[in-house]
């Protein structure tokens, strides 16, 4: 969740930069074209206009290109977000199914999920409005049912399956 927040924020910054540049280009183009139009009215076709024409064209091309780039960036960000949402939803289902298989009580499942999310005992106690002793006992029972001795071991039970395709140095040495 924290990684997600960080990433969407940085992606947001990029799209904001491009959008701001496109807006600035539009403002510049309006004033530039108005000025070129005035020159044209005053002087007719001249060397000055011959230079201003291509500049105006490139300004508009820049706006069109920037706008299209911005749309692509927004579409990419949306695709990333939905992929992440699908993955996190799938992981949530896996976790709940596993908790059910271990026959965790509702309270134990809640506490274990908070533990997976990285909350410490004091935080969990505050979130659930219970004593830290209660949380510690519930966590211990959850670990026992899962057959692990620590929070790190509990987390790795779930992470392990997601990393199956990543080669591990030790595994390579063994092979």
């Amino acid at each position, binding site marked *: 969740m924290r990684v997600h927040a960080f990433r969407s924020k940085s992606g947001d910054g990029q799209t904001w930069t491009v959008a701001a540049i496109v807006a600035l280009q539009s403002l510049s183009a*309006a004033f530039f074209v108005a000025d070129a139009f*005035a020159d044209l009215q005053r002087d007719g076709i001249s060397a000055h206009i011959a230079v201003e024409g291509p500049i105006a064209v490139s300004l508009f091309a820049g*706006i069109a290109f920037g706008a299209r780039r911005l749309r692509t960036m927004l579409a990419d960000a949306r695709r990333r977000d939905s992929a992440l949402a699908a993955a996190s939803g799938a992981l949530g289902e896996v976790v709940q199914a596993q908790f059910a298989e271990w026959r965790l009580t509702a309270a134990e499942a*809640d506490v274990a999920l908070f533990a997976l999310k990285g909350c410490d005992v004091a935080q969990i106690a505050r979130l659930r409005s219970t004593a830290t002793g209660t949380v510690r006992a519930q966590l211990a029972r959850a670990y026992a049912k899962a057959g692990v001795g620590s929070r790190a071991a509990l987390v790795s039970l779930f992470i392990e399956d997601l990393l199956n395709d990543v080669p591990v140095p030790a595994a390579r040495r063994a092979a």
Partner: protein
Amino acid sequence: MTANTTEASLPMWRWDPLVRITHWGIVVAVIVNALVVEEGSAFHIWVGYGLAALLALRLLWGLIGPPEARFSAFPPNPSRAIAHVREIASGTHTTHASHNPLGALMVYAIWSCLTAIIATGIAMAPPSAAPWTNLEGKEHAETGVQAAAPVAAEREEGGETEERGERDESPLTEIHEIAVNLLYLLIALHLAGVIFEARRSGRQILTAMLPWPTGAKRA
């Protein structure tokens, strides 16, 4: 309380940056031209041309932007607007990916009004008489529109231009001012609509357009 926080981790939907930049840019331009600068001053004309650029960019975005920002996502459709009013009356909620049908009518009304204001504004202060024009335009920069009429009149060669300049200016000014007053009315309705919708369906409609990131509301 449960540990299931999927709702909190779902990103809130926001308008894309370009929609927000053009929206608030136009807001600033309208406020500056209505309340801060002198009517018809050089700065007023500058701001007006800037507003025209932002509106043009938003309209371009309506053709090539992301799905929600496009015209096709919020067609001006009175019968859907009426259906939406019935929905409000019956107390049911449907979520709309873009503007709701009533809001869409408001958007087109405001854009039309702005277009009328810009068109009459440019007619009164054409590029050739605008404050940034070099040479003869520069001398008129301080006086703005008052200077613009004679400059425009000079171009319309011949003797009767002097009176024609005088006569032509007043209907344009009048349309400009009527459209501006209409715009104020539409802005008031727009704000009332947003407040009403926020009370009916939640703060989402407000946060979607806010120019700064809002993430703190996740409990």
